[in-house]
């Protein structure tokens, strides 16, 4: 029967290969600075997994995933900032006990929407629920009105731009263009030490695998098949008795939650959050990572995030001006030549060769066994 196993053979191999790389090879071979860079790259893999569901499967291209990445990141940053702004730490301010940038902007009390972020459990919930709620509102407003395709992409892009402007403009409440910086401890635990970075890397990888499994679960349910069906023949899904808008909203919300988990991890790994990870450019870059990795492949999204970011770091160090052109060219090349990205190249060219090799090996060893067995008879 089709789809009777959670991972098929090649997916299981992909899962194991990724697990070996992220749990063993990278932590053993990289110094803590490089490992922390990998951790930063991996935060985009969360966004990529969401985009695979929403864009690859559901056909909903969002050019505003930075919004959700940012919302998750800012929720985490607000908690960390409040912890760093204890009365003892901020006694030189005119109003001790509030974040430094608020004091610089003549705020004298903590704004109401900051207050819940004193609590760690509420922060964790907010990281998941705030982006999901935001996505629900955008999704309901767009999909119920049958706004889709290019129009939806442009609107999400506009939302990313608006949120950036809002964050930059409301300096006293958000930290403005600098973002929320100087974060120190998470629930009393110093996140700036090498040891903490090492632990955080593993926490992130475990979360990443959790998200991979969750996305794979969604993909294998009937909902996953309805997403594919919707991408191809929206009307046929509608006339099979489904509310297409609700399914699109679900996919968009799920992608938002994945992105937000990535954003929250980003804040922990990098130690600050700023509007430069929210706007149009980062949002488009996230789509490029997914496209390069393969928008139909959950593992592809992880590889895409790792490889493109690795290239970005190495190339932008040597050719800072050329890098953006390179990224643009990469996107065009992938869309034109390899619409299914690296995972498509793997599935079309590498996998068949491996299969052939294995098959010939098997038949050879079978032949060998017959040959070996012959004299004994």
């Amino acid at each position, binding site marked *: 029967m*089709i789809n009777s196993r959670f991972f098929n053979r090649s997916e299981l191999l992909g899962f194991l290969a990724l697990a070996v790389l992220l749990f063993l090879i990278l932590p053993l071979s990289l110094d803590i600075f490089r490992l922390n860079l990998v951790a930063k790259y991996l935060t985009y893999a969360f966004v990529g997994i969401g985009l695979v569901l929403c864009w690859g499967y559901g056909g909903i291209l969002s050019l505003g995933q930075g919004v959700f990445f940012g919302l998750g990141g800012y929720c985490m940053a607000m908690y960390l900032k409040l912890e760093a702004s204890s009365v003892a730490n901020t006694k030189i301010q005119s109003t001790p006990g509030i974040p430094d940038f608020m004091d610089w902007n003549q705020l004298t009390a903590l704004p109401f929407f900051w207050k819940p972020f004193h609590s760690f459990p509420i922060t964790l919930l907010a990281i998941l629920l705030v982006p999901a709620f935001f996505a629900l509102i955008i999704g309901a407003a767009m999909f119920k009105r049958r706004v889709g395709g290019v129009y939806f992409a442009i609107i999400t892009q506009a939302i990313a731009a608006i949120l950036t402007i809002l964050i930059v403009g409301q300096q006293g409440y958000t930290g403005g263009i600098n973002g929320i910086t100087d974060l120190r401890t998470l629930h009393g635990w110093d996140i700036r030490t090498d040891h903490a970075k090492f632990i955080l890397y593993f926490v992130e990888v475990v979360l990443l695998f959790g998200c991979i499994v969750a996305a794979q679960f*969604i993909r294998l*349910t*009937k*909902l996953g*098949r*309805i997403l*594919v*069906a919707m*991408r*191809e*023949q929206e*009307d*046929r*899904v*509608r*006339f*099979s*008795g*489904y*509310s*297409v808008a*609700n*399914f699109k*909203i*679900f996919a968009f919300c799920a992608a938002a939650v994945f992105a937000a988990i990535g954003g929250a991890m980003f804040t922990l790994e990098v130690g600050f959050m700023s509007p430069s990870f929210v706007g149009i450019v980062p949002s488009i870059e996230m789509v490029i990572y997914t496209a390069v990795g393969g928008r139909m492949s959950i593992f592809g999204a992880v590889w895409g995030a790792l490889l493109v970011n690795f290239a970005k770091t190495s190339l932008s160090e040597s050719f800072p001006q050329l890098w953006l052109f390179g990224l643009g060219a990469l996107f065009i090349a992938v869309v034109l030549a390899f619409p299914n990205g690296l995972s498509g190249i793997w599935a079309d060219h590498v996998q068949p060769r491996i299969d052939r090799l294995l098959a010939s090996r098997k038949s050879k060893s079978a032949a060998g066994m017959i040959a070996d067995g012959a004299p004994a008879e």
Partner: protein
Amino acid sequence: MLVGHQPKDFLLAVSGLTVSFDGFKAVNDLSFYVEENEIRVIIGPNGAGKTTVLDLICGKTRATSGSIQFRGQELTKLRENEIVQAGVGRKFQTPSVFEDLTVFENLEISFPRGRTVFGSLTFQRDDTVKQRVEEVAEMIFLKDRLNTYADQLSHGQKQWLEIGMLLIQDPDLLMLDEPVAGMSVSERAKTAELLNRIIKDRSVLVIEHDMKFVEDIAHKVTVLHQGQILSEGTMEHVKNDPKVIEVYLGH
């Protein structure tokens, strides 16, 4: 006739239905009634508004005025998926199946269970589903192609698959838009046989140009012309109507 005063045995009562696209009335004050277990064929020249009538009933196009009552329920106010859930199934003119899914998965999606977001997340492919899918696959001549992706099917097989998807919905009113168009002669014969089997126990509304096919299956024929009814009755009656011969059959 007054809406709401129809005799109970009408499954579908369309009255005063009008739709205008930028002032052009594609369907103009149209009224007709379909009984339980009736097979009604709509014929007419190109542009007569046949497909638009089906679009209006299934909710794809919104009526400008008029009413469509299905078992006493007003369809013009419902959304497409609610109309499907009320028991109206629609097959499109060009085969619309999900090409990236297998025949099995195509049929499974149409199975009337787990149609909400959370219903579909918790949907289990149990024996009832498997049995029903296999049963329908056998009817539509695709029993040995269950694991084939739909993009590998021929045009005729895709048409059958879509009919199968409707069948699994088990609608009380089945609407088919040119089900044998573009089929080979042998596929056409098989489709006629298939349709004859599935039209039992339900009402069917068919658009078709193939007169031989119409004569074979129709209980009653409605001839549309410029968005209005030109003639209605048995095939015998319609065939001999001088107005019909002039605008349609004569050519």
